[in-house]
């Protein structure tokens, strides 16, 4: 059964049609054309599909497309302010916090959520805040440092 869904994605009104059992991740990737969220596992274990749903970070592989009806979704594609990168995006680049980059959209979305809740997190709070996202390349070292540095800059701004 196909369902028509009306949402706001990255501030824009977006309508799409999806199957009743189709995940929000598949709808975003295959119906809306936003492929920044990745499927690493399909079971909510890796966080590569992280998006913000009404301000709450979720694994979009565990949300149905139909559940997005009337709600606001923020994805990695909407993170920068036009050509101006979000401080997290910039700090990830400066610190070399990505190698292959497949987990990066999910980490940036999760890190943004962490800093929204707590602008001045400890190292441990960052590590636990990002524990729902898997990275296999970096050992997380440079990711944590990039988030710390971005937090510092954002607090100063």
């Amino acid at each position, binding site marked *: 059964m196909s369902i028509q869904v009306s949402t706001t994605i990255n501030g824009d009104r977006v309508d799409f049609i999806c199957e009743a059992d189709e995940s929000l991740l598949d709808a975003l990737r295959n119906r809306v054309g936003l492929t920044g969220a990745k499927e*690493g596992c399909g079971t909510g274990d890796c966080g590569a599909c992280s998006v913000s749903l009404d301000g709450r970070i979720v694994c979009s592989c565990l949300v149905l497309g139909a559940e997005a009806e009337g709600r606001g979704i923020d994805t990695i594609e909407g*993170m920068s302010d036009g050509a101006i990168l979000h401080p997290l995006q910039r700090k990830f680049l400066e610190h070399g916090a*990505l190698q292959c980059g497949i987990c990066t959209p999910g980490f940036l979305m999760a890190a943004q959520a962490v800093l929204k809740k707590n602008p001045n997190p400890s190292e441990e709070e960052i590590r636990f805040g990002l524990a729902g996202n898997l990275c296999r390349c970096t050992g997380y070292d440079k990711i944590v440092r990039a988030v710390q540095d971005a937090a510092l800059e954002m607090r100063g701004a």
Partner: protein
Amino acid sequence: MPLDTAFTGQKFASVGTRPIRPDGIDKVTGRARYGADTTAPGQLVGLILRSPHAHARIKKIDISKAEKLPGVKAVLTSADLPDLTEGDKSMFDVLENCMARTTVFYEGHAVAAVAAIDAKTAKQALKLIKVDYEILPHVTDVDEAMSPKAPVLHPKMFTIGMEPRPKKASNIAKRTEYGHGDVEAGFAEADHIIKESFKTEQTHQGYIEPHACLATIGPDGQGELWVCTQGHFVYRNTCAQLLGMDVAKLKVTASEIGGGFGGKTHVWAEPVALALSRKANRPVKIVMSREEVFRASGPTSSTSIDVKIGVKNDGTITAAQAELRYQGGPYLGMWAELGAMTSFACYDLKNVKSVGYEVLVNRPKVAAYRAPSAPMAAFAVESVIDDLARKIGMDPIAFRIKNAAKQGTKSSYGPVYGPIGIGPTLEAAQNHPHMKAPLGKNQGRGMACGFWFNFGGQTCTDINIGIDGTVSLTVGTIDVGGSRAALSLVAAEELGVPYSQIKCNIADTGSLGHNDMTDGSRGTFSSSMATVFAARNAIKVLRDRAAQMMEIPVDDVVWEDGHAKAKGDSHGNLAPLSLKDIAAAAGNTGGPIAGHNEIVADGAGVSFATHICDVEVDPETGSTKVLRYTVIQDAGKAVHPTYVEGQYQGGAAQGIGWALNEEYIYGKDGRLQNAGFLDYRMPVCSDLPFIDTVILEIPNPNHPYGVRGVGETSIVPPLGAIGNAVSNAIGIRMNHAPMSPPRILKAIEGAKKH
């Protein structure tokens, strides 16, 4: 003219700096396109039917119902993939692994595939395929598979490398031996001998991006493949051979790659996607699920290893011996052989012998995993080295320094070493503040060494100068972790222009000559060598053009700081010409300006590392926390130090996961019980501390800039380092990895009883 690959000791302007990578913006904005991120008009969804049995004969496959389902455009079995391998056994193994023929050898082995208009239809079609199996006895454990009572996977498998060659078939596919001297004489000289046995469980590379490809073949025999791979040229050659295509008519484009670590050096679903496309005459996209990645791509070997080392009271090792049994899944690999070659490579040994046995079991076909086979051998050897040091009352670092290989040492696997970094990494460890930091209750410190060969191989690179003087650098090695940035730095260095003036692209297979894959830590090593020579060739052309523009002999033109300059007193008043000036005039001086290089990049310098780690073991739960971790490794020359550090940290983290948690768990039914990230638990952010790195630079004499590969060695020491730290914390030698909480708890409780 032979190219001079010798290290010159030049000073660097660009190399060694840390600019932003050229693919960075795409990767932080979601724009970068990975294997699953593209589509083609009219594309179909491909899905693969996999065996639920560990070992079974395929009696019959009935695809008639699936073919009749509306929306199904092709159903495939091995009948659609005839054997074109012409006696090439290893290529036949690849074919059979992609699609089982008469027998399934592991749970997850592909038996059929469908292409349909959407995923829902494809899933329905899979359910309509009826496979009639005759279930056969199976074996998944490496030691059990070697037993004479074990079910034999291949009835014609008579061990290679045994004299005389056995007449009875077995699962021991091959025996290899490395070493020199007389180990028995060496053990006779020893004051102490320690012999221990070890096991390591099977682990997966765990790249976050599942395998994905989009394949198209038309009736004219031409095809295209978009795929996440570590080696698109190699994928092209393999797929073309398996499908009977002309190599030049299959264009393979490498997507951005979401991690590989060796697992994307082998083809899995790609030939199937191409064959489905050929049958349906439509583009076919196959994206593996995570479960399929675990069950049906290529994890690393599980192993069983015996190590025996003899030592004199003064700390001199008199003899070292190892027997290494590695399972390769159902097919012959060189996994035990690599273990045998690497096992004692860190040490200067008079008498050494390593014997490897390649063992076949009913598990997925093993693939390379970062310094393949070396971590397990190092786990065993470094554990025994620590125990010997304790036995003779010597500091473990001092003991290793005393016996470390050095320039001129005949390595345990044959070659004589040039300048190497094992001694310097050990000395750096000895002097590192980490070694002096205090430890608390239930805490232990361990250290271990590691070695990897590093590969070179076939490589080619193009440099094309744009009309505005900007530089296109075109390479054929996949960028797995920042190599485009590193190679751009090398081009900038050689041409004498800013990094920002270079754009590095990865060519598709139609745009550049063959390149071997990004494996063996060869990406930056070999492509940087080819880039240096391509740039030097471009400079030759640039000097020639500048000479025309200046109307002076080319021998009077030198290339300095990105400019052609007239040398000598007679041309003193001629202004230097920039790359931009020369490029702008190219149309009148001979046409486009380019430099090319094709090379077999020999001389990849070997790589060594020493790791130190502190752990705390909870005696109640057996759970281990890594408190502090330090990686010291020789990079030869760190081209982009940030990404060199990243390699050190990433390898260490993978090794930590392997040491403490990760393992394939098989049931008695031969089925994998933890094919998902929830139950196959890789380290998450809160599991790890910051991973400190120390980059040593002992130049590789065979590379113009001294570069060595840096990607793999960092995964070699962690099992041993953590094993030693845990053993120091609990006072019991742990000889089975991963050292998961149940194993540690069992060891602690076992020790209480004695």
